[in-house]
């Protein structure tokens, strides 16, 4: 038998001796993550209700029309699903804003309603948000305030215009009834504005549902962190072994291939261990993601196969990090820092769309970013896209670098 194959066999035997430990750690981690995920989904923490914007309302709200308007907004208008308006005093608003309980504060100037009723539009509503909240949310809120102001002035114009016409034509008896009818018509138009458009939600990121997205990212994060668990196995340098093997005709490439393939087998086995309870849960519909709704556990089998390139790439990345470190402690630290840092930037915890553009770009070109994109795509599509080729490219680069590091180690002793 070829010595390369024999070496692979020995390494496989070696890594499999650690499998019981791996199994226990994986099961404990999976159990914790699984409980958190189910609680997250069941309690609706990921649903829209959990993401309402809390807006503080301060200023002159003594006017009954304003009170009626606010009640209508909070009970009839579609915005109630997104915005919670909370009347409060200046002091309360300041404290809540400082604590981060409020997204923004809307200040209604004193005498605004009287000014509107008299036809003067010289009082402006102030919308106050923190500097760090510049984003789509703040922009939308600003637009809503503008729309509200426009609606008020346009409604005013319509009502005053109609009243002038009625007075000019001497129709005093119809004056109040017509005013009320027009008011109600305008309110109906505002409240029913959602009838003018359809909203199609494409998903949290990469076109996936929140559950689908986090299913992929948590799975990849688990794989990434498994490098920490395996650090004691690979970080201690066996330079004498490498030199001996070289003298036996097994070079750096053969050594890396044997060790990497054994490690990959261990990783795949770990994925199988994670997928068995997942399969069981999906089969019994205890857990599902919208992308696989009503399909049972069948898509999981296909997903396991398409996940393999990402598993292989992560194994190669971890192997390279092992090659670069000399001690177990430094190995664990490097794996941990790389896992957390790359995972964070690539959107494993928050979709990368939440980050500034430069970070989004950085995250997407990272190996973890390519893997997440590839796995996200593979969750719903069957084609092997550019992200998949990116994953394979990283795999090749990491293995090539590992061989170079090993060669250097053999040469330097």
């Amino acid at each position, binding site marked *: *038998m070829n*010595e390369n194959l*024999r*070496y692979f*066999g*020995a*390494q496989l*035997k*070696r890594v499999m*001796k*650690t499998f019981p430990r791996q199994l226990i750690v994986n099961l404990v981690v999976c159990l914790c993550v699984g409980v958190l995920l189910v609680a997250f989904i069941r309690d609706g923490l990921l649903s829209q209700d959990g993401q309402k914007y809390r807006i503080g309302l301060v200023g002159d709200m003594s006017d009954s029309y304003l009170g009626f308007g606010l009640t209508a907004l909070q009970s009839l208008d579609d915005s109630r699903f997104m915005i919670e308006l909370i009347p409060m005093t200046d002091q309360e608003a300041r404290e809540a804003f400082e604590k981060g309980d409020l997204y923004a504060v809307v200040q209604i100037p004193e005498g605004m309603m009287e000014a509107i009723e008299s036809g003067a539009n010289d009082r402006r509503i102030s919308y106050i948000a923190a500097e760090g909240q510049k984003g789509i949310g703040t922009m939308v809120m600003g637009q809503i305030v503008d729309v509200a102001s426009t609606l008020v002035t346009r409604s005013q114009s319509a009502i005053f215009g109609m009243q002038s016409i009625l007075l000019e034509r001497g129709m005093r008896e119809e004056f109040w009834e017509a005013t009320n009818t027009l008011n109600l018509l305008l309110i109906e138009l505002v409240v029913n504005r959602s009838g003018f458009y359809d909203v199609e939600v494409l998903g949290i990121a990469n076109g996936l549902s929140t559950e689908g997205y986090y299913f992929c990212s948590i799975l990849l994060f688990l794989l990434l962190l498994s490098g920490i668990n395996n650090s004691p196995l690979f970080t201690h340098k*066996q*330079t*004498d*072994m490498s*030199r*001996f*093997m*070289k*003298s*036996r*005709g097994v070079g750096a490439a053969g050594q890396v291939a044997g060790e990497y393939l054994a490690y990959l087998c261990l990783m795949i086995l770990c994925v199988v261990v994670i997928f068995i309870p997942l399969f069981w849960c999906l089969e019994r519909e205890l857990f599902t993601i919208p992308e696989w709704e009503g399909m049972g556990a069948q898509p999981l089998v296909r997903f396991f196969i398409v996940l393999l390139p990402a598993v292989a790439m992560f194994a190669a990345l971890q192997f390279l990090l092992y090659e670069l470190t000399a001690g177990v402690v430094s190995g664990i630290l490097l794996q941990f820092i790389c896992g957390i840092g790359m995972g964070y930037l690539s959107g494993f915890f928050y979709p990368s769309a939440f980050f500034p553009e430069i970070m989004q770009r950085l995250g997407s070109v990272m190996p973890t970013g390519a893997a997440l994109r590839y796995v996200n795509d593979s969750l719903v599509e069957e084609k092997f896209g550019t992200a998949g080729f990116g994953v394979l490219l990283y795999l090749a680069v990491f293995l090539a670098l590992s061989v170079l590091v090993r060669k250097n180690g*053999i*040469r330097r*002793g």
Partner: protein
Amino acid sequence: MEMELAGIRKSYKKKKVLRNISLSTKRGSCVGILGGNGSGKSTLLSILAGVQKADGGSFLYQGEDLLQNSSRIPSVLGYVPQGNPLIEELNAWDNLRMWYDRATLLRELEQGSLAMLGIGNFLKTPVHKMSGGMKKRLSIGCAVVARPKILVLDEPSAALDLICKENIYCYLEQYKAEGGIVLLATHDMQELELCEQCYILKEGVLESYQYDGDLHHLAGKL
């Protein structure tokens, strides 16, 4: 001569580690190379073992230059590095099986080199539970099962107790008696007693030395 080194050179960047190393020896002999730390002993042995490439020179065995035909090295030469080239999590048998087939190992365990090294006594012991002497014997075992003609050892008895050293020396004497050539780098005076030829490697230059038991004189030469 059975084995001959001629003009072997090696530099790391601008530092010349080996300068025209030349020596020759016959079958059944032992060559000891002495030298201080960092004198280039390990580099020389690793070049002979095919681990590193020389900048120039030749390593002739029965007239064939092994540096030019490095694929032949594993079948001619057995190399035992300074540390133990063993997988700690596996037992002695699994470590040996990485390099040799089952039938060869069983034969050697019964009446060959492995039997002489006493490896059969701890065949199922995981390496991490072995003593230093057991590990060294197993390391030598991994190198010699295929019965190489030349055995290259880098400080084979460093940090071993007397009984282990004696065990290893007995084996090396036996190996020589069977016509093998032993080339060892050492700091150990006891090991020098095994050697028919001694050399001192200093500042990359190899000089012949006749050890007469005067340790003070030897220390002055290093």
